[in-house]
């Protein structure tokens, strides 16, 4: 139980750390904007200190629900629960955020929700195929049982593409690099993702908190497939994610349909290929 709690805290902490690292590195690079090292946290506090003003009453409650679901899912992840449980938790969380965005009845909010739904098909497909191949490779869906296989680097050797696909799905969720589903072509920074157009003030704070936790969940999920000690593989996946975030600043944005194609090819195709390939072994 203690271990679970430690993981719970660790996963919550790691994501701000990633943001800080990104901030520090970016501000060190010449030609990037200067910002305080812990500006993300400042920004979160600021958002929570503001009111939110909507013409739709429910909009400010959906993010709270999403945040709750994220916390529950986080608990499941750190307890190494059944992966399907985690998937359904993530899906439910996404549903809340999308419905909130849709319920503002502002065109750009609805557009964001629409893209979110399209996005959902990709990453949930990736996750479910990953679950299937995990079962095929390890014979179980419980992550806490699967991790012993990963220790002997069976998982990574048998599911390399699934791992890659999962990482791509994490990038999709973070609107990173070529997988940016943002509304206006320039998403100012990672925490200001344009997919969350209709949210503002406190509910934006909740949304961003949700996104932090969610990113942590993804990193932990990916780390289950990596062969090293749990802590080390978690850190490794975090470092990969940081690299993706740094890449984000120099990658041009595309139309969301091209993004969709890319996402299907990379996040949907790789695990599928790997899954079929499992039978060839």
């Amino acid at each position, binding site marked *: 139980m203690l271990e679970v709690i430690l993981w719970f805290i660790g996963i919550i902490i790691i994501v701000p750390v990633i943001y800080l690292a990104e901030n520090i590195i970016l501000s060190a690079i010449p030609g990037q904007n200067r910002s305080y090292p812990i500006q993300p946290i400042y920004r979160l506090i600021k958002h929570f200190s503001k009111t939110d003003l909507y013409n739709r009453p429910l909009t400010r409650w959906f993010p709270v629900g999403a945040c709750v679901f994220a916390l529950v899912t986080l608990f499941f992840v750190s307890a190494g629960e059944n992966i399907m449980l985690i998937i359904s938790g993530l899906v439910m969380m996404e549903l809340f955020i999308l419905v909130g965005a849709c319920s503002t009845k502002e065109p750009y909010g609805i557009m964001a929700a629409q893209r979110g739904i399209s996005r959902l098909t990709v990453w949930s497909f990736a996750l479910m195929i990953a679950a299937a191949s995990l079962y095929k490779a390890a014979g179980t869906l419980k992550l806490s049982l699967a991790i012993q296989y990963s220790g002997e680097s069976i998982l990574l050797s048998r599911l390399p593409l699934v791992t890659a696909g999962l990482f791509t799905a994490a990038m999709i969720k973070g609107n990173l690099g070529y997988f940016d589903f943002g509304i206006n*072509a*320039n998403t100012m920074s990672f925490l200001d993702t344009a997919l969350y157009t209709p949210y503002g003030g406190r509910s934006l704070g909740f949304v961003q908190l949700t996104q932090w936790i969610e990113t942590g969940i993804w990193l932990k999920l990916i780390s289950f497939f990596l062969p090293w000690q749990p802590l080390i593989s978690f850190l490794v996946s975090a470092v990969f994610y940081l690299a993706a975030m740094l890449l984000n600043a120099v990658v041009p*944005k*595309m*139309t969301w349909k091209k993004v969709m194609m890319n996402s299907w090819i990379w996040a949907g195709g790789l695990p599928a290929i790997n899954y079929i390939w499992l039978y060839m072994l």
Partner: protein
Amino acid sequence: MSEKRSASLLSKLSGFKSMGFELLLMEASEADNKITVNYLLEKEGQFESVDITVSENTVVPSVTLVFPRGDRMEKDIEQRFPVSFKRKSDEMPHEEGYSLIDWGPFHPLLPEPVLFHILMKDEVIKKASVETGYNCREVEKLCAGRKVWDIPGILEKVSDANGISLSLAFASAVEEINAIDIPQKARWIRMIINEMSCVNANLQGLYNTAQCLGLYGDSVRISKLVGLYREAAELICGHPLLFGIIEIGGINKDIAKDSFYAANAVLQEIENELTDIRKKWESTAAIAKRLRTTGFIDSETAMTASGRLARAAGNAVDSRKYSKLPYTDLSYTVQVREESNCYARTMLKFDDLSQSFRLIDRGIESMPKGEVKQEAKVKKSGEAIAREHGADGEVIVRVRLKRDTVESLFFRNDTSVNISFLPGCLEGTELTDFPLIVSGFDLDLSGMEK
């Protein structure tokens, strides 16, 4: 307005068109409940003017049937005078399954306020219409009746992109009427200032394009360059936007050659950085592909366009040709590309920038010594049209003077021609490419709406 008159008007205009004339500007004036619409046509520097006088609230046949570029000018006239033009309306049809959304007037990717109504399905634009008038200040009205000496100070603040060129054009128009010939050094300095304002405008355009491409890093780099440019400008005349230096009869203070050299050094720095960015954009496949696949305009449409839009379609329009500034003493080539898409326009911006840098450099070299200002006596009344090289094309100023007060002032830039082609260009494109295309048109709305 009777069928017969309108038919005769149109036939007259199309006759001029067949002789190779192009519509330069449209102007209207009101006198005792009669409105006179004046079509000024131009062919290689010679002007033809067609007038038509109608009573109030009449419907005048639209010139767009003959000269498509006249669309925007007609709208301008409609805004100010009680006449209307028989034009196909850009009302948005409401269709089943199509979303109708607004873009703007204030959007991070729109440098100037303008409102787009977009009819789209699954983010593919079916029809788009532009609604302007958000930065209309009625500058012409303000200028009418003022003393000549105030006008350059107003005009240079009209727009960031073309302001300097406008006030230069005004100055040269006034000087033409009063037969003032200004000292050589002043002409050269004016030329340098004009080119520098073009540099500024094109840098802004590139910044906007980088933003539309989602290249956060590059946009930051370019806005660093803008900062550098402003340093250079301050070195020359103590104002980051070169305001307050142009004056009738020259420029209002002498500028030491060293400060020009210092500024030029900064500009060289900018140029090196720009070449780096250009290399990156040309070599990165994703950027080049996206630019190439957006914003295509077919050639016959582009032929009637003007400025950079026309040059991107292989139509070598030399906007420096009719300038009073000593461009003719320097040899320069008109930058032209063939593709006529966003890629061509963006690369032309780079080309124009490097050309401006070269012109500034040689201008500084071959700048004569001597006075920069001579006593200007503005006594004569009269009318003159002055054309000046602007950032993305040509600015045209038409002045009527009564002694030293401005009786009427009219000016336009190329945006008022090119914006007519924007909705047509937007149809069938993705919503995400839409700001990119708009930035490719480099609209100078504040200069257009006055």
